[in-house]
């Protein structure tokens, strides 16, 4: 039953570009991008319990790494891999430095990283174009074909993220991260190398975000520091994960989908006050559904049995 549901969902996603218009394709691409961001944050925030605000830093870093590589003539797909790899390496170093902080202190340390990177990008005008932004090579494809191409590529990145998340959760790594979340000192005592585990989780939370950032740069063809280092790239994934249910695979996905629908509806209907209304909805959901949408007894509606 459950497997059937996922296969059905995958088929719908695969066929959508052939029935929907470009607006829908664009929306669905953003939806999958959100899934990647939410699932990525879930590695460090949901599984490990470290409230990271570094997602924006990884996204921006990946975007600039990809954009600069493409500007040097590197093929687009390879540029995405470079963005992902650079974000992961950066996260490993950063993690070793700031993952020894806990709770609010870790949150603050991770929050400033995006700002620091933005200032660096702003001031290295020769390489990054600074505040003027950076243009990327335009693909020699029609508008419709481009929309479909980026849609399927994003789908691929999202699938990769989903499979990685599902894999990690079944392995000792996921189990150990759960131990660290609940009691890090006790986790150390039973033989978990918490430093290594947390650093791996942090890198996992960066690698797909970096790839998605590079993808984003190719997709929109023009990036500037304020756009890709936007703090909203750090906050939205957290809201999505809390909305859907932290520490699971389906929670962040459901959260990302629901969040995008809310965002789009609110944007259309409250043009002058959309951020405020969205904020109110989020506050409401967190008050009344603190463990996320997954906590609803949805299994009964679909006749799924709890494993």
């Amino acid at each position: 039953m459950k497997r059937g549901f996922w296969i059905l969902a995958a088929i719908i996603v695969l066929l959508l570009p052939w029935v929907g218009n470009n607006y829908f394709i664009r929306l669905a691409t953003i939806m999958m991008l959100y899934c990647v961001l939410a699932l990525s944050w879930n590695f460090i925030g949901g599984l490990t319990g470290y409230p990271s605000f570094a997602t924006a830093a990884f996204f921006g870093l990946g975007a600039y790494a990809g954009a600069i590589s493409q500007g040097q003539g590197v093929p687009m797909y390879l540029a995405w891999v470079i963005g992902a790899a650079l974000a992961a390496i950066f996260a490993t170093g950063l993690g070793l430095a700031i993952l020894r902080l806990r709770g609010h202190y870790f949150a603050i340390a991770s929050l400033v990283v995006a700002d620091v990177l933005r200032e660096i990008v702003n001031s290295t005008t020769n390489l990054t174009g600074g505040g003027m932004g950076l243009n990327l090579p335009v693909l020699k494809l029609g508008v419709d074909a481009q929309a479909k191409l980026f849609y399927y590529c994003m789908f691929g990145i999202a699938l990769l993220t989903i499979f990685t998340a599902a894999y990690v959760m079944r392995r000792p790594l996921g189990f150990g991260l759960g131990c660290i979340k609940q009691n890090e000192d006790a986790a150390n005592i039973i033989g978990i190398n918490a430093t290594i585990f947390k650093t791996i989780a942090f890198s996992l939370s960066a690698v797909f975000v970096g790839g998605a950032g590079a993808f984003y740069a190719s997709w929109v063809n023009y990036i500037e520091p304020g756009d890709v280092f936007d703090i909203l790239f750090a906050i939205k994934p957290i809201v999505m994960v809390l909305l859907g249910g932290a520490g699971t695979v389906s929670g962040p996905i459901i959260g990302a989908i629901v969040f995008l629908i809310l965002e789009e509806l609110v944007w259309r209907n409250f043009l002058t006050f959309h951020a405020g209304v969205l904020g109110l909805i989020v506050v409401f959901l967190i008050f009344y559904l603190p463990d996320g949408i997954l906590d609803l007894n949805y299994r009964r509606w679909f006749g799924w049995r709890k494993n």
Partner: protein
Amino acid sequence: MNPILQLESVTRKFGGLTALDEVSFQINPGEIVGLIGPNGAGKTTLVNLVTAVYGVTRGRIFFDGQRIDGLKSHEISRKGIARTFQIVQPFPKMTVCENVAAGALFAGGAKSVNEAKEQALEHLHFVGLADLASHSAAALTLANRKRLELAKSLAMKPKLLLLDEVNAGLTNVEINKALALIRSLAERGITILIIEHLMKVVLALCSRVVVLHHGQLIAEGAATDVVRNPRVIEAYLGAHFVNQRQKEN
């Protein structure tokens, strides 16, 4: 016989306070050694030093002939030292079985999560918690949480087990069960260092006792001798009491 655990002039200072002062003693394989002393004597600090929760200020600690001060907690647990905490430390949102499986997976040599869970069930049987395997760890009674701590430590397949007041807060009946359990651990060949306030337990279990007072080792020897040692009585009850007793005799 080579000692399994050896402390050489171990000192730990917290700012101006010397919590442990030049403490040296050793534990031989197969022994059950009691670690006693009044509140604040440094007993838990000593366990925390052996398991690298804190680092030593001075001195050396050897386990199985290898120097272990300076190693990290997780490295020490993988070498074969397990401990329980005075204030129990379960993973509250996991089941009882998963709690024990964590020990089996990361220090007990289990290859996969499933294998760890199978091993966990055996250990739960041993401590008498098998019926509660699928319950949440947060819902256990104190006595059962202490047993869970034991099962978790056992799952790590330790050579040396450090028990920090496993009997505190238990009823008499529960203590008797715990005593039987600790004895059966020793029969499995696990060396045990037990911090204990209840003399009944110390006298029943320990072949040897080490006494700490104000961070210093003040007596060491057979349990029945140590409880008659004037310095030990003084540490617990004050000099006044010792003088009085000597007059009475």
